[in-house]
């Protein structure tokens, strides 16, 4: 691909780009916040809520072990949700902007 000079400011102010920016920002921050909060609940729970973590729920398997395992499931789910959204929505929106990019603002 030969590199063309683009009018970046024009693309930036294009409503479609603004829409992509808005959607992406809120989605990404939401997921980031969720994953951070969920992750830090593990060391905090292990330190300050030991009685809860010690409750046996499945034979000898206690809340603590299930919670630690759930960290993996939550991380994978977040990754899956993001990639699904990005593949079906963000990529399509970006593609529309790329297709028109060299026409914008010229």
């Amino acid at each position, binding site marked *: 691909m030969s590199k063309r000079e683009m009018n970046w400011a024009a*693309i930036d102010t294009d409503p479609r780009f603004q829409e992509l920016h808005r959607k992406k920002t809120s989605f990404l921050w939401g997921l980031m916040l969720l994953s951070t909060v969920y*992750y830090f609940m593990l060391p905090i729970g292990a330190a300050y809520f*030991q009685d809860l*973590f010690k409750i046996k729920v499945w*034979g000898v398997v*206690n809340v603590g072990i299930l919670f630690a395992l759930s960290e993996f499931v939550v991380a994978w789910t977040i990754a899956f949700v993001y990639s699904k959204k*990005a593949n079906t929505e963000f990529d399509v929106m*970006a593609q529309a902007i*790329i297709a028109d990019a060299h026409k914008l603002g010229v």
Partner: protein
Amino acid sequence: MRILNTVAFFAAALLSSSSAFAAGGAVADEFKWMTFAVFGVIIAITMAITFWAARTTHTTSEFYAAGRSVSGIQNGWAIAGDYLSAASFLGIAGLISLYGFDGFMYSVGWLVAYITVLLVIAEPCRNIGKYTMGDILAFRNDPKKTKVVAALSTITVSTFYLTAQMVGGGVLIKTLIGIDYEISVIGVGLLMLAYVVFGGMKATTWVQITKAVLLVMASLLLVFLVWSPYGFSLPAYLKAVIGDDKVIAQVAKLLGSAAATMSKEELGQRFLEPGLFLKNPIDQISLGMALVLGTAGMPHILMRFFTVPSAQAARTSVIWAMAIIGGFYVLTLFLGTGAAMLVGPAKIAGIDPGGNMAGPLLAQYLGGGAQSLLGNFFLAFVAAVAFATIVAVVAGLVLASASAMAHDIYVGVIKGDRASQKEQVVAARVSSLIVGLMAITVGILAKGQNVAHLVALAFAVAASSNLPAVFLTLYWKKCNTTGIIAGMLIGSVAAIGLVMISPNMTYPKAVLSAAKKVMEGEPAVEAKAAIPGEGLKCELFAVCPKAEPAKLAQAAKPGAPEKKAGLQAKLAIATDAAEKAKIEKDIAGLDKTITKAEDDLKKFAGQTTSMMGLEKPFFLLKNPGLLSIPLGFLCVILFSLVTRDKRAEEMWDELYVRQNTGINAEGANVH
């Protein structure tokens, strides 16, 4: 290619020469040939990869980024291969085998870290970057200044990580098969140099993929063998683990006098509960921050995203990496608990106090034990995977440092971006050679040093310096050159400085008093009530009393020489052969302890302060992230706000559009 063959020959000669056989190691002498055979096969495979990769490595894009032709799935495996270092592969299984739940909890942060990489780093970096972290920062900031700082930070982070890998690897190979420390460091160094110098990123990538596949295969096999007798039921399996006497004995040992009032069942269950290893929750949170934010700032991880053809492929690669890395850590739960139940914590810690031998010993047991052929073949295989792990991780790190040196400093700053392809590739190869030889030298010099904290330090520096700079450059319009430079310098100096005054350093007074206790025993201690702390400040710095949990009364303990005399008396009257052997083993263990204490007493005699002139730690956490990460962010923000930088402002629109759309991103090579 003659040089390549020479290196291969030299490495093979080193590994097989009889002078390399030293006494000791987990593999018995009569089975060592098998270990070397497996090592030889793995070395041969990686050399073939290098030979193949070297033929297509001519341009800078081929050397640094494998021609951007690595697929998303391949890159996912390579990231896993790059990331699952010996510390996480052997170390976490070891922690679980010794401390149960806490070891498993420790592994979680290493996976969650990839959420940050996926959501905010991977795709934008692929869209605007070229070969290095410096390229990303130089996009809108002053190119020369930011490239110098980025290269310095890259080399600092990589050197810490590299030193930990070299020293850890040397010790590991010595423990496993008894090859001399220096020889294994040189062997690892030369092999890694061959991959990087001749095959560049392509060879490094495929060595990492090979290693990741071997690692996953080996773990799956072991977990299958450990879990299948229980019909793949989690409660039934864990019930067997905590019902084992060896596990119960370990918990009793860890709890000390508190164990006296607990039943066997309670002791076993305790293995699955928190608090046996990680005692300081604030330190945990600090480490968690460094992991979650540091991984995304690791130069060798960032660099992996330049090897794929597009941002979409970068996304795919993180998803695959998360599946492999996460899946692996779930497997370690079984490897660790399996080793605890079948091999026993006491035996694992007896060979390596950090527990690193849990995985290999479990493999040996599952194959049929120390005397069996299959058992030793399993052990040889796991040892070879460990070896491949070290080489693959080290190769990635060397490539990252060398690219910072050659691409950022030499081409970007000294040559002002005016260098021919040929010149650039030569610079890259020469830099790899320099960094590689440096790594070997540092590895040999650091023999016997405690380097465990260097990994945590590498993550802390990456999180406090690299991540704030990259993140704010990508997402904050007002971010500029002054902010980046100030933030990176202050962030990394703060992280390093805090570690220098933390409990990670060696404090002669503490070492001497511990050695004295070993030799002379301890008097009885009365029970102590808990002391409430005086706030967060006191938990972080030694300026006021810190909270202390209640302590139970402790009976007096005899010194090691006194214990030894008692055992010798017992030995004299023992009649049973098995009992005799056990006492002799205990005496040998005590002798080791005594020698170590005597060495410490001699080594630190007359010294009272650490390297930094402190008698005891001033900063009380082992991980500086809690303070240094916010500081790094704050400095980038403050210095950006008080200065103006026209270029940084003008380039914002272009950067923001490009990182989101991939317009004008570096394309894949077409052959």
